[in-house]
């Protein structure tokens, strides 16, 4: 009966999570492996190619089918999506398809849509490479976006190769994202640990005040805090002004639009996420332990690293994981206070969803990020003896 009651109280949360989190996320991530544009726009062409292999000459039926698809797709705008998708693998095919689409529609029924017709518009439309790409993109699922997310691509023949040098990007960005997240996590740890310790050793009134101050950033919007940092860190900003007038520096420091600004601003925003889990764990450590260690002859530093630290480890792990996972997904703060070489992976996900509408690549990048995060989390679990998520 008690078990039934427990489950009953959990139902709203489970339902909420299922409907508004799990299902949309799985649906979004499926875009990384699904192909929708070409199957929708070119069904007849794919039908004509169903028994074709790349080493054979292109069947004549394929051209008539292609024309039929173009006439049909004219009403829905799906041709433009398919053209864009095919252009990812064969540069230049987008404009060829647009032009062909217009010519086909103007030619009207009764025209003989054969190989010469399309050859006259653009030879790429009659090449086996083009139809090989169409056939591959016409499958219900493909690995095109997953490969692109790690700077790989397939040749028209189907072999997997690295993307050309000038298009290689995502592995660098992934590494940079992890780098910045690590720096921010360490900075939060070094700044947050003393504050958490202070919270445990202060009197109740002082501890309450400190706690309010720690939580204060949550009451202002993230964007406001980030733009406040712009005002503080800019070349003629407050920090430079103070340092210059105190004579500590001769030239203004460049603290914004570079890595420094990003780390400072992100640390400020994520500090409460380190302090609160840490405090939760440190609060549970009996004060008597340190005194007992001292009475057994341990010097303060030895007592700290042999008694206190192992007991604090779960809290440290929890805080670090939380800060790391949050910072790996950040893109607003680096976009506002970072330079061009500080853009993190999520910025590209955002660019692909709002800038060009390439949902496949956006979700493939998101999937990569998710996998990396899960791996790191499991690693942290293993290293901390399975107590990584204990929050005291």
């Amino acid at each position, binding site marked *: 009966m008690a078990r039934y009651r427990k489950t009953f109280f959990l139902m709203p949360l489970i*339902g909420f999570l299922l409907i508004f989190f799990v299902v949309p996320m799985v649906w979004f991530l499926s875009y990384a492996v699904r192909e929708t544009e070409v199957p929708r726009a070119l069904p007849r062409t794919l039908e004509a190619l169903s028994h074709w292999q790349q080493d054979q000459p292109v069947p004549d039926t394929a051209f008539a089918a292609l024309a039929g698809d173009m006439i049909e797709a004219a009403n829905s705008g799906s041709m433009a999506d398919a053209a864009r998708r095919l252009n990812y693998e064969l540069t230049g095919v987008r404009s060829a398809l647009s032009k062909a689409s217009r010519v086909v529609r103007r030619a009207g029924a009764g025209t003989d849509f054969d190989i010469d017709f399309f050859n006259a518009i653009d030879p790429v439309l009659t090449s086996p490479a083009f139809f090989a790409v169409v056939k591959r993109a016409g499958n219900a699922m493909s690995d095109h976006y997953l490969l692109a997310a790690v700077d790989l691509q397939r040749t028209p023949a189907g072999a997997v190769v690295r993307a050309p040098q*000038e298009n290689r990007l995502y592995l*660098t960005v992934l590494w940079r994202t992890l780098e910045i997240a690590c720096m921010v996590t360490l900075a939060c740890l070094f700044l947050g640990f003393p504050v958490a310790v202070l919270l445990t050793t202060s009197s109740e009134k002082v501890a309450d005040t400190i706690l309010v101050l720690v939580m204060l950033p949550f009451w202002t919007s993230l964007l406001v805090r980030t733009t406040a940092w712009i005002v503080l860190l800019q070349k003629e900003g407050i920090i430079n002004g103070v340092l210059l007038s105190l004579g500590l520096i001769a030239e203004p420091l460049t603290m914004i639009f570079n890595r420094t600004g990003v780390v400072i601003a992100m640390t400020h925003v994520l500090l409460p996420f380190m302090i609160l889990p840490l405090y939760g764990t440190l609060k549970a450590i009996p004060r008597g332990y340190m005194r007992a260690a001292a009475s057994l002859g341990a010097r303060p530093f030895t007592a700290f690293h042999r008694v206190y630290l192992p007991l604090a480890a779960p809290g440290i792990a929890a805080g670090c994981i939380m800060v790391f996972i949050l910072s790996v997904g950040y893109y607003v703060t680096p976009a506002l206070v970072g*330079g061009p070489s500080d853009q993190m992976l999520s910025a590209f996900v955002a660019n692909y969803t709002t800038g060009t*509408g390439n949902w496949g690549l956006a979700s493939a990048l998101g999937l990569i990020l998710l996998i990396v995060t899960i791996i790191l989390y499991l690693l942290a679990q293993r290293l901390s003896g399975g107590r990584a998520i204990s929050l005291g």
Partner: protein
Amino acid sequence: MSRHKWKTAGFISLVMAAAFGPAIVQARDLTVVSWGGECQDAQRRYMFGPFTAETHIPLVDEYWEGGIGNLRTRIRSSNNTWDVVQVEAEEAAIGCEEGLFERIDLSMVGGADRFLPGTTRECSVGAVIYNVVLAYDASKEGKKPESWADFFDVKTFPGKRAVRNGPKWNLEIALLADGVPPDQLYKVLSTLEGVDRAFAKFDSIKSDLLFWKSGAQPKQMLAAGDVVMSTTFNSRITASNENDGTNFGIVWNGSIFTMDSWVVMKGTPMLAESLKLIEFMTRAKEQAAIVPLNRTGPTNKSAIAEIPSRYLADLPSNRANLEVSVPDDPEFWIDNFDDLNERWSAWAGNN
């Protein structure tokens, strides 16, 4: 026992779904979307407000920062709440081809004769004409830049520069700085060597380059001293000088001349009202009224006559400015935007 538990779980989840599931269809107001900042303030004062006053159709205005992907997503997801949007030149062309916008019957928006030649297309009606210019802080000492070549000259003009994050307009100015004559600009840019040349030019100042995304950022970066030069829109700089007391200089020589258009999102439930709004916003008086606040050129033939002469020198359509500007080519960008955007992202993202 456990079967009963799962049945209950399923039932409650279904109830939740039923409660939230059916989209609550509320009648929404006509929504117009523009670029934000001083531009939109001027439009709100002289166009949106007066429109509602005259027609009693309630109007909601939002802002955006561009990006054809935004529009693609809205239409494809059938979750579009925008009606009239101000888009950039190639966004108007790409969107029309992809079926994102409604076709506009010019007779419903004042007639074809009302507009300057070349400002109307199948799905779009010209809204404002402006230039992408080089801006610098004129209150600082030293030589003043005079052309795009100076933008790329870090030796004579040390300091950081800011450009918009994206290939559009940036590849053009790189080629102009490299000595390509304006009438050959897009022909050179259509070749692979031309694109490589533009990227190589940007490589030469890569370590001094910053990016902006929204039109209000360049002014902020210039004022704070974080950059010494920036690409920006002429209207933003003039507005900043007049309203915020800054002393920024504009280089008209070689600036890129472009036009934004009004479009109507496909499938809008308020097509007639949207066309009425566009008709209102392209009247001579209304287009002239925003000029003191927003130095953009009008697209209505008769609007120039209504603009006080003291503002004409700041307009892109002023003869002196027109002679040295370079018109942009939306057709080029329709075909090449996605490819060049990918290459730009890779170039910009790499260290």
